């Protein structure tokens, strides 16, 4: 494959690019889903192709072909340069790249049990069985699925980067829905999107869907008759770790993407409330807030050996003791900000241009258990498992809904609450965090559906999270 990427890069350089890189990516994917005791869909996808990125003036040109022939690779390189040249009609200052030492390397994620070696019959039986269990325990609609992605990629750049990687990702999800007179209630396990990691089939086995199927079906049924989450302007809110992963993803992860901060995503994904001039001094949250972007965490969904520019995986401090100190960046955005690349550039496929993506953006553990948080709360609400998420284009104002809530009175978990929602402004919300879960509750949640960019790229990100408590939060917003 290196012959192809080298030829493509050479063609781009010959076409006038002052920098070029090329990626061959081969991906195999499998998804299987069952509904109400029947496997309804088994879909296997393959893709293979080469994408070439050429830098001329102030613009990247990118061209991709679903073809691994030598002629196609050269043509992709030529076209990438040609497309970049056309950008001169609306140009600006020359785009620079942060300095990088060219690396040569190979990396593979750890995969203890090959997901392709597990028979489809076993996979199907598992999904059908858990959906039947959920039906038997009160669900009107029971769904379960698993997904596998197996990606090999080869990168070469005009500066001499030469990197190949093999990344296997697996995971599973299930949900039980109960249908009432006027509304529906759903419970999901392990989370709304399931749970995924850069691991083999062993992750799916560890999730133990069968053991959790009865509980979520019964909870979905019970939610139909549970009291609604009260509308309160200010109360104590405890979030479970799954909802914390979403909270981190939406209100921290996207806000610290340097391309957003620089305005490159202004028309679609949006910008950020963060001003680069305040990095290092702005208070993002309370002193208990410590966030890192760490692409080296074993098994987490946002882990890799090298990003798609060849920058070796490493950890970047994002928020330290509540102060905003870092961003997610690539070589182009980092150069503009005057920092080193954060190694956070990835492409969702051979046919997509690499862009700033979250790696594993997570909250570092504190020293409280969930039970301690409940015991320390006189009057509040506990919520978990994300149900809806909405946040403004500056990543400042959010309103999130959870599948399930519980009243907390006098330090004890009380009645189940349906339709719990909460809303807030990011720095005020994070500033109110006064208890943070400990290391024993630290979970590396995986989000396989992060949309960003145009054309849209669906990225895989990781979010280490623990439960946490927030003070004075508005809850129970309804239509």
């Amino acid at each position, binding site marked *: 494959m290196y012959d192809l990427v080298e030829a493509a890069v050479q063609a781009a350089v010959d076409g006038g690019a002052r920098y070029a890189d090329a990626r061959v990516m081969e991906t195999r994917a499998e998804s*299987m889903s069952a*509904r109400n005791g*029947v*496997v*309804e*869909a*088994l*879909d*296997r*996808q*393959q893709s293979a192709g080469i994408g070439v990125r050429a830098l001329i003036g*102030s*613009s*990247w*040109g*990118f*061209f*991709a072909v*679903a*073809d*691994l022939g030598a002629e196609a690779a050269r043509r992709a390189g030529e*076209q990438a340069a*040609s*497309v970049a040249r*056309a*950008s001169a*009609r*609306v140009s*600006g200052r020359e785009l620079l790249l942060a300095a990088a030492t060219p690396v040569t390397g190979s990396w593979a994620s750890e995969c203890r049990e090959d997901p392709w070696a597990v028979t*489809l*019959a076993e996979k*199907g*039986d598992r999904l059908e069985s858990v959906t039947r269990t959920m039906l038997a325990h009160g669900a009107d*609609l029971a769904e379960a*699925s698993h997904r596998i992605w197996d990606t090999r990629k080869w990168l070469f750049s005009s500066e001499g980067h030469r990197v190949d990687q093999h990344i296997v990702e697996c995971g599973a999800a299930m949900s039980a*829905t109960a*249908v009432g007179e006027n*509304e*529906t209630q759903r419970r999901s396990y392990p989370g709304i999107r399931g749970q995924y990691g850069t691991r083999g089939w062993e992750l799916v086995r560890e999730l133990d869907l069968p053991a959790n199927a009865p509980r979520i079906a019964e909870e979905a049924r019970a939610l139909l008759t549970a009291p609604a989450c009260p509308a309160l302007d200010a109360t104590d809110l405890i979030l479970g770790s799954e909802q914390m992963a979403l909270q981190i993803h939406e209100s921290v992860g996207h806000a610290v993407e340097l391309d957003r901060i620089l*305005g*490159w995503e*202004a028309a679609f994904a949006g910008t950020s409330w963060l001003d680069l001039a305040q990095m290092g001094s702005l208070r993002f949250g309370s002193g208990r807030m410590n966030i890192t972007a760490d692409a080296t965490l074993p098994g987490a969904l946002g882990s890799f050996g090298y990003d798609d520019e060849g920058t070796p995986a490493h950890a970047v401090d994002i928020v330290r003791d509540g102060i905003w100190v870092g961003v997610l960046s690539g070589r182009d955005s980092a150069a503009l900000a005057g920092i080193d690349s954060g190694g956070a550039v990835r492409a969702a*496929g051979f046919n*997509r241009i690499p862009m700033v993506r979250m790696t594993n953006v997570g909250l570092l553990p504190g020293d409280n258990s969930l039970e301690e948080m409940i015991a320390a709360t006189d009057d509040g609400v506990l919520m978990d498992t994300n149900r*809806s998420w*909405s946040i*403004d*284009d500056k990543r400042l*104002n959010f*309103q999130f*809904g959870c599948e399930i809530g519980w009243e907390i009175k006098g330090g004890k978990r009380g009645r189940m609450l349906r*339709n719990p*929602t909460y*809303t807030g*402004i990011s720095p*005020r919300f994070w500033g109110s965090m006064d208890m943070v879960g400990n290391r024993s509750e630290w979970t590396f949640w995986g989000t396989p559906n992060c949309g960003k960019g*145009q054309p849209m790229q669906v990225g895989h990100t990781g979010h280490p999270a623990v439960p946490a408590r927030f003070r004075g939060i508005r809850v129970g*917003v*309804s*239509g």
Partner: protein
Amino acid sequence: MIEGPTSTESRTGAADPVEVAERALEIIRAKAPEAEAEAIVGSGTEALTRFANSVIHQNVAEETSHIALRIAIDGRTASSSLDGPPDGEALDRLVDHVLEAARVRPPDPDWPGLAPPAPVPPVDHWDQATAHASPDDRATRIADFVDAAGGLETAGTCLTKASVVAFANSAGQRSSGRTTVAALDGIARTGTSDGSARAASHRVAAFDGRLLGERAAQKARAAADPTDLEPGRYEVILEAQCVANVLQFLFIYGFNGRAVEEGRSFVRVGETQFDPAVTLRDDPTDPETVGVAFDAEGTPKRPLHVVRHGVTSAVLHTRRTAAKAGVASTGHAIEGADEWGALPSNVVLEAGDRSQDELISGVERGLLVTDLWYTRILDPRTQVVTGLTRNGVWLIEGGRIARPVRNLRFTQSFHEALAPGAVRAVGSDRSLVLGGFEGSYLVPSLHLASWNFTGGASG
């Protein structure tokens, strides 16, 4: 053979999708004569030029080549797809994969069988100039947009896309089609506001970058220095992007045969569930829309009214949801979206007779909203959705624009927003808005009686 795109950035020697689909069926027939089989094949080009800070910063293009096979052997079904050149060896391997998968998976008792032979409406949303559009063509339109913004910072995209699609199944259904899509979508920015303008069509010549840039800049300037507004219920005029957003939720979670079957939909056919001003259909034959006139299962798409003068008249179906409901598929299967059910492709909301000035003059106290953003459903049955305004929102008092206001968060049932008595007027404008799942929405502006704003975006 269908004529495909031939621009300098497009295909050289790409295989004819019709021939590839036929070849795939032949290979399956040879390896598994008992299999029911279908193939959908697409090829084309997609190019997108992005600008930000008034500079083109990303300029991307790709050649697309896709084939998806679905087979059933004794009710055991499997799908497999390939993004890559469908040469002999790759096609052979793809067939082996899908056969292997089907033979070992559990049977699917709900397998509805293949689409029977049926003619496809003569639709051809194709424009040769769009199929041939070059990076220079896109850059020129962006330059016009940027220049017309009169010094305001701008950002956005210009898209051109061409695709040729062919379908064949072992039940004898054959269909093919082609479509082009072009869109220019941008914002102009002051220090305190953004204004947007967009246009989409199957013809790149249908829109003028200069006019759109002027409109975006005018909106941005008119929205500058906004002030807070107390949350609460207000009349609203929703511009086209907002209306498309509302309809997307009504279709995905309401008029979807799967949602109806599962009891998750509010839809009840035959009942007056909407204001009489609402007449809504899915219609690939409208000359102003885009796409082809058959779905991923080869079923033809025909104009289908889901609401006539406020009365719900139909739901959308795939073959699977139709079989469960005991009706015929309406042609709304999307490849790889089985779990979502039946999704719209060419939504058309019938326009009214009011200009935007007339709509505004009919508002006593309300808001003019340009775009909705980050809308997410809280409950599919009640259609309660939360989201925010974006790219310009103004308070209207006594039939006149009073002042720009800051973005607001809303939590609103989209069904209730269009319920009987809720639609005050329908605009005469008709804009094509591109939506999710490759759907398009041809919609006017709406004046609605009430919209529930639950908070300010800045706290």
